[in-house]
């Protein structure tokens, strides 16, 4: 385990460096000069030079990267070109909406998927198993924002049960209002994410159901529920945990889209504004933070997988 931990941590650091290089290269090389955002169309050469010096885009790229990566790793994300405000506090403020949306949506999706997936596997040759599997199949083919639109139409506009969008101005001062605002978005995310999770849980459960150890346990007199609980849960959870990391990252991206459906002033909303205004400090700030999220979640998922499965824990070589 310690050997694997070191290896996996080294990979985390390597990933972070690669990701930083990619973000830097994409944002600095492909477009025009980042200084352009500060300039008007008919800027004089002197103004251009001044802007380049201010942004730092007149120095060698390697030097720019070193300076920039150092700042990023110290969470010095710079200031917005447009508003002049520091990026980090803004990102953290937006996370107050995006993070609960992501985490609560994901947990709800996971809860649905565990029940639906096990039921779909146990009843795979009954009508309800087929039905649940069908729902999951259709679910992975549905764009997340479309579910949002339909739910708004039915529950907000037709039935008037929940708000169709927006977030209380005073954020979480009144937690009840904030949660009400997030209810439909969370349900939207949960519906879509539970579809793919259900398929993984179902596949893992089917594997367990077909295993020799389960048959042995049953032959030894254990009931189906008891055998599944004692032997199935831990074995079955290994492949599911393996994909939880990527699914959680996908949920974060889903949240970004969902915020747009429900006009929530979260991270996704900030990213879209930044893209529209070519506000590169904001774009890179959001990318760096979400990259860190994706990488740390992947790291945690891999470690969790080792903790659950002693066979993986013993192998030093990693999982490649």
């Amino acid at each position: 385990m310690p050997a694997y931990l070191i290896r996996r941590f080294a990979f985390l650091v390597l990933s972070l460096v690669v990701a930083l290089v990619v973000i830097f290269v994409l944002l600095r090389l492909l477009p025009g000069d980042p200084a352009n955002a500060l300039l008007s169309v008919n800027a004089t050469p002197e103004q251009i030079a001044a802007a380049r010096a201010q942004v730092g885009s007149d120095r060698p790229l390697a030097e720019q990267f070193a300076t920039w990566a150092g700042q990023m790793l110290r969470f010095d994300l710079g200031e917005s070109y447009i508003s002049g405000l520091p990026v980090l506090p803004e990102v953290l403020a937006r996370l107050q909406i995006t993070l609960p949306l992501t985490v609560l949506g994901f947990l709800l999706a996971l809860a649905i998927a565990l029940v639906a997936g096990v039921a779909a596997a146990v009843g795979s040759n009954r009508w309800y198993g087929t039905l649940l599997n069908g729902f999951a199949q259709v679910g992975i083919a549905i764009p997340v924002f479309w579910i949002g639109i339909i739910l708004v139409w039915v529950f907000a506009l037709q039935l008037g049960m929940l708000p169709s969008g927006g977030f209380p101005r005073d954020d979480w001062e009144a937690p009840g209002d904030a949660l009400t605002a997030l209810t439909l978005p969370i349900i939207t995310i949960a519906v879509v994410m539970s579809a793919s999770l259900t398929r993984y849980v179902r596949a893992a459960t089917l594997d367990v159901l077909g295993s020799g150890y389960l048959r042995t346990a049953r032959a030894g007199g254990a009931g189906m529920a008891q055998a599944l609980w004692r032997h199935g849960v831990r074995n079955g959870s290994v492949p599911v945990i393996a994909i939880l990391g990527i699914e959680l990252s996908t949920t974060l991206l889903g949240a970004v889209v969902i915020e747009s459906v429900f006009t929530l002033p979260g991270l996704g909303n900030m990213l879209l504004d930044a893209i529209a205004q070519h506000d590169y400090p904001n774009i890179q700030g959001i990318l760096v933070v979400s990259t860190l999220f994706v990488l740390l979640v992947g790291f945690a998922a891999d470690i969790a997988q080792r903790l659950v499965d002693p066979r993986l824990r013993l192998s030093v070589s990693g999982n490649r």
Partner: protein
Amino acid sequence: MSDTAPVQVTEIPDAAAAARRPRRRSRRAVLVIGCVLTASVILLALVSLVWLPFPQSDTSGTRLEGPGAEHWLGTDKLGRDLMTQLMIGARIALVVGLGSVAIAAVLGLTLGLIAAFAWPWLDDTLSAALDVIIAFPVLLLAMLVVAVQGASLWSAILAIGLAQSAVVARLVRILARRVLGEQFVTASRTSGTRWPGVVGGHILPNIAPMLGVNLALQFGIAVLAEASLSYLGLGAPPPNASWGRMLFEAQGTVLTAPVGAIAPGIALVVLVLGVNFIADGLRDVADPTRRHG
């Protein structure tokens, strides 16, 4: 395989067999349904090339009209015919899927084969880089590229294809490695075949079925990713409305004209479900370990 009649000789009370039996029987049905769903979208796109109910930029209709004899699906808030837009959207969705998958296939095959054949250090480096890229949701990478390149259909296709090529490359590497370990490769090499001959004669034919299944899945992911990009305003700008853009425009008028917010969504589900079903149906044919399950 599905060519032989689904005869069950003896019923063995094995949970796994019991679990798979209905799946296997319905395998062919899934493939057929997938083909029908996909073909309906292809048909819509092909017809749109030679005939459209109304000219693309025709705004003569009454605004937000419901479905009727003249406008089959009604009109949008500018009075444009929704059926016309839906048909053009089918064209765009197919172009996005095919374009992204083509990029992913070419780049993924090249990178994957290089990794499979390369010295260990290069293989390790490539694999680590691919793992980093795979850790990111396709949509995030696509948003990054579009943020930089500006919103257009081609930057969306390019971005999605690039992101997916990492997944394809990793699959190709694993599959190619497996084939390289086979004795027929050794035999072929011993009898004087050069490596390019081995790649063309043994590796590509052996990895093609599983690769095809994966590319079909990537097709669906690409269509969904483009729809999200368009919905967010990062896809093709109007009037080349993709289904995602149509949904964005119809969202505000869902109460007065619900069809506009429903039809493009159903079209998306039909296409993505169709290719997913095809992939599912083909997997049994492609993967021998599942065939006798």
